[in-house]
């Protein structure tokens, strides 16, 4: 089932001359985990906003083409209606704290109260989200007293608890240490397995390589490529679009270590190791 359909999407922010999104077309299936990569200013955040309807409902500007999520055409739907289908977590966790709740637990409940869920459903979902993001121990803390990383996890939990069919994350791990980032990726991987469609704009290439089903490359607002991590990171011209391949891929490229059948290069440490053993098994032992 096509969960997201983007057709010839163009968008320009008010009072700017340049297209932030330039003629994008692609589709996403339910349950896919999609990584969006690209240099600073490539349009990753803008695409995230367009997928949730905040562009153009909130930002205005010049908009063309079409975005359909869950069968709803974004431009013809209210944000409050879209909110039940697609959730978004922004880069800055601080501005996502509602500021009206005294504890993390109540903060996560905010969206659920607005959805009109009954109490038992609410507490079940909150506990589940707390557990999934590994922040159960923070549930009674004041949201404003959390560290950046803790706040970010709370922001993710707050949106996940609403169980949107589509989850959009804009650099969700920018405040997290490597271990914290890994946990967030594991959590969304699990959600995708359960059927949630997940879109992540992310700088941490190694994480995208390890977790994404497909990777979308943006450059100057244009879609350069949209394919499996292996295909994307095996492109030799990737760096000219401002994105480096994962170090493991770079090493394998330098050593000429490929997957024998597909001709692509390994993108994670495990793959690189296995490929090396296969190719140089004797000499490694």
């Amino acid at each position, binding site marked *: 089932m096509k969960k997201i359909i983007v057709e010839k999407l163009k968008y320009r922010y008010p009072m700017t001359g340049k297209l932030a999104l330039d003629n994008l077309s692609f589709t996403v299936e339910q349950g896919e985990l999609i990584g969006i990569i690209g240099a600073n200013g490539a349009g990753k955040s803008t695409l995230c906003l367009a997928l949730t309807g905040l562009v153009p409902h*909130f930002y205005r500007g010049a908009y063309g083409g079409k975005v359909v999520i869950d069968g709803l055409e974004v431009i013809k739907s209210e944000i409050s209606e879209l909110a039940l289908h697609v959730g978004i977590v922004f880069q800055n966790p601080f501005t996502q704290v509602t500021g009206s709740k005294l504890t993390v637990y109540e903060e996560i409940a905010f969206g659920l109260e*607005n959805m009109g869920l009954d109490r038992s459903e609410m507490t079940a979902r909150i506990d589940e989200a707390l557990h999934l993001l590994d922040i159960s121990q923070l549930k009674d803390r004041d949201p404003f007293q959390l560290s950046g990383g803790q706040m970010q996890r709370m922001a993710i939990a707050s*949106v996940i608890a609403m169980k949107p069919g589509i989850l959009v994350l804009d650099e969700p791990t920018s405040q997290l240490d490597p271990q914290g980032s890994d946990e967030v990726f594991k959590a969304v991987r699990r959600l995708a397995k359960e059927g949630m469609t997940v879109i992540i704009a992310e700088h941490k290439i190694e994480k995208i390589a390890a977790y994404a089903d497909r990777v979308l490359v943006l450059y100057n607002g244009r879609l350069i490529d949209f394919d499996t991590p292996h295909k994307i990171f095996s492109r030799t011209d990737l760096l000219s679009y401002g994105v480096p391949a994962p170090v493991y891929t770079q090493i394998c490229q330098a050593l000429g270590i490929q997957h024998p059948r597909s001709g692509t290069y390994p993108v994670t440490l495990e793959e690189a190791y296995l490929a090396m053993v296969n190719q140089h098994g004797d000499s490694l032992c």
Partner: protein
Amino acid sequence: MKTVKSMSLYVPGNSIIHRLEPITKLIYVMVAGVLPFILPANPTAVLCLAVTLAMLTISKTLTKVIPLTGFTLLVLLSILFIQGLFHEHNQTFLFRFGPFVFFKEGLSYAARISLRVINLLLGISLLSLTTKPSDLIDSLVRRGLSPKIGYVLSSVLQIIPQMAASVNAITDAQRARGLETEGPLIVRAKAFLPLIGPVIMSSLIQARERAMALEVRGFNANRRKTFLRAANQSSRQTTIRILLILILFAAIVWRIFA
């Protein structure tokens, strides 16, 4: 950003008073505050005060009242002093204190005002010391207050301390770069102008982002809102409320016909 104090006066606890529904407490404060204006002032105020003090004691918040009311007590003391000396109907000599001569009329007038004010003040203290602001606002929203107004009320309590903290952070940054942020008022005023620019800018940007974040969490969803916190709708709460309102009603009737 860390160690920001909340503006709430709430003292966590689990006493009977804490567990009363916020609206019940709100009704009590209003009834107790209004009664001395309807019934004979002094005895009524003393009675209400006694009840409020008893509840403060039960909820173990009595000691927290003093810093809250200190300033007002000082003002009331000076009213007692001035009225005792200079009230226009002063006639009956009461006592002499050094060069000051106190009269009965002025003192009793001031005492009447003071009792009413203290009564109201302690009532409000009781409410704010034993009730989470968010619970009170929740209850009001449940009773029909617009969720948007409720949000504004509760976020103001949290976000003002946040803004104060960001002013502090920027002051520190500017001090580190050599801007005068201490000393005479005029110097500080000059330093303040470049300071408010960044604060306002960052607040505006944050406000926009926060508005989006609220929006995608269904703040404007056209659904019947529910509440995480269970309403304490026991029949006892209802009885207390009805009783309070009956007392008020009886007082008004008495006032009209007596």
